[in-house]
């Protein structure tokens, strides 16, 4: 067991246990807070995967913005008070079945497929590579995504504002 493996397993555990807490906590705030280690764990995995830029963005956006946003909304919608409120709905058994089944299936498939060796090495400077991808082959996606951001920004404001 080398350091990479150890790191991996630790990060994996963090992700999965955190994920488990997210989906299963009675207390919504706990759930929201549990998102943090989960997402951080994912970021760590990105590091192991030599995706530094993605890591940075993950932490910035996901952990930083989205988690906070969720917490704000929880507070605004009084979800924080619901300790005694049941959080699970009636679909649990069926959902377990479906998710479990799906997981099993996908696992069964994915681990058996011979993915083959890598086509080449990763580029050394990650942000540069990403930047170059965004501006040359995938410039359209880039532009469209910014439009989407604009639209959602405007939309969210419109939807969430208080009626006069």
């Amino acid at each position, binding site marked *: 067991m080398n350091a990479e493996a150890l790191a991996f397993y630790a990060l994996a555990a963090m992700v999965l246990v955190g994920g488990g807490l997210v989906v299963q906590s009675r207390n919504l705030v706990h759930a929201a807070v549990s998102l943090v280690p989960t997402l951080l764990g994912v970021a760590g995995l990105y590091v192991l995967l030599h995706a530094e830029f993605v890591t940075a963005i993950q932490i910035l956006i996901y952990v930083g913005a989205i988690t906070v946003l969720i917490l704000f909304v929880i507070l605004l919608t009084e979800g924080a008070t619901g300790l005694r409120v049941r959080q699970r*709905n009636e*679909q649990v058994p*069926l959902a377990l079945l*479906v*998710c479990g*089944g*799906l997981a099993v*299936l*996908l696992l069964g*498939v994915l681990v058996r497929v011979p993915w083959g060796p890598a086509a080449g090495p990763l580029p050394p400077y990650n942000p540069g590579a990403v930047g170059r991808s965004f501006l040359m082959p995938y410039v359209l996606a880039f532009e469209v995504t910014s439009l989407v951001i604009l639209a959602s920004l405007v939309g969210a404001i419109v939807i969430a504002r208080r009626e006069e």
Partner: protein
Amino acid sequence: MARLAWLIPLFPLASYGVLAFRGRQLGERAPYVAIGAMALSFVLAWAVFLEQVGGASAFVWRTAWAVGGDRVITVGYTVDPLSSITVAMITLVGGLIFVYSVGYMRGDPYYGRFFAFLSLFCAGMLTMVLANSFLLMLIGWEVIGLCSYLLIGFYFRRRAANMAQMKAFLTTRVGDTLMLVGIMAVFWQFGTVDYHTVFEAVRERAQEASAVVRIGGWEVPWVTLTALLIFGGPIGKSGQFPLHVWLPDAMEGPTPVSALIHAATMVAAGVYLVGRAYPLFFFTPHHEALGAVAWVGTLTALLAALIAVAQDDIKRILAYSTISQLGFMMAGLGVLGYTAGLFHLLTHAFFKALLFLAAGSVIHAVHTNNIKEMGGLWRSMPVTFWTFLAGFLALAGVFPFSGFWSKDEILLEAYHHNPAVYTLLTAAAFLTALYMSRLVAYAFFGRYRGPQHPEPDPWLPEDYARAGLHHPSHGHHGGHEPHESPPVMTVPLVVLAAFALAAGFVGIPGTGPEGGSWIHHFLKFEGFEEAGIHAPSFSWPLALRSLGVAVAGIAVAWVVYGLRWVASDQIRAWVGPLYPFLRNRMYIDAAYAWVFVRGGLRLAAGLRWVDVHVVDGLVNLVGWVTVLVSRVHRLFDTYVVDGLVNLVGWATRGLGLLLRPLQTGRAYNYILVAAAGVAVIVVVSLWRL
């Protein structure tokens, strides 16, 4: 003159045609048409007859009616001694009766109709006599049968008349059917219905062995069978036992009808036919057909005479007397007395018609038929009395009246050829004298008793109104003395009485060549000479014996009914059950009524039951089944067909209700389903791989 003989039946036929359409309008003058026609026929008939008497040869005329290969049906007429003397008799007697009827039927609302039917009858009878083909004979035969039916039921408002006319027609029908089969047999065998051809053929065949027919185990010679079948007609029409029952009931018709049809002519048609078709009867092995005829006749003669003794209705007595005398005629023909039987036919026509007309005169005066309600009429109706007496003596067979000569001829032949028949016929002759004397004693002698129940008027007021006559207002004067009839009725009586006396003189031995009588010479059967049969010569001892028998009968009757030395009640008691037996006509009529009439009605009722219950039942069943089927159909329609339709709707609704819970409106439910769908897709894809 013989060439014109075909006109003889046509005059009365034309008279019928006129009277049928204009009879009612002519009213009182209707008889003139009929009498005029009869007069013409009379003149022509006697001219023809006298020609034959003068020795003219027989005239035959025929033509083909229908031809089929080598078979032919002919019609035509023959003028020979037999047919000429018969038409002479018919036109004379018929004419006299027509004249008599003018007086007798005066005041009747259907005067014209009466003479129309009488004319038609004469036309038919004359046709039948002159015919020389079985077919034409049959046509005439049926016409006279029809007229008999119509005239018996002339008083159609009376139920008794209706029953009588039906009885007459149906009974004679039985005989007529047998005769028809016989004619068919003749045609089948000989290929023709012409008399002369057939008789020639029969005579030739007599030489060779004759063909036989098997019937029920017996072998019957073909010719005999044919002859007996044809004899069926005369049995019916001439009132022989067992088809005699219609004749007494036929007295429901007016008296002139009884005189003409049921005494002188129609009933004589049967005898005439046997005489005409004599070769058919004679040329059977051992003359066996003639034997049958003889026995039927003898039996009839005796039977009818016995019944006559116990009857009280004057017309009934005369009716049974007619039956009895017809039996004598048949018996005469049967014992090889060809001339004798036919001679008696002619004399009988005169004196029987006379007796009936005189009886009619009496009935007209006293308004009753019952001899016990009459009496003392010899004083109040002298002409009627003396003429009736002449007829009576002729019938009884008293010398020198006609009946003596003809009846004696028959007895003579019977004595020589069939002693048993002779004995029975003598007994019948005795009875004849007896019952006639009884009648005369009751009706004409003693005190007038008067009718207990006068006969009601046979017509209704509307019949008189229709004819434009006013209803005879005079009630029946019962109790007042009867008076003599008018001359229009009494003159014919006198003429007939003269014939009743004199007609027999043609039978006196010595009047003809070779010592025989003229009638024997005139009317003879050629076949006798060939067969070596000679007519027995007149025998005075036998004649005296016959006379004695007649006188004895009269004497016995006079003792009981005239002088009253022996009370008739005593005799009645002495014979015990025999009296009711005879009085009720030996219950033959009753037996027929039980078996045939009630049997027939029961059969009809039975068939009606079948029709109503089975046939109608079936029809109703079909209807009922149809209704049932339609009900089932409706059920089917309601439950199955509609049910299916409803099922579709119900199923759809059910499915909808079933599926509705799926629409929870909750997004997370939908997502679950989507996720499950994804899983399914994954599985399916993997499967394919």
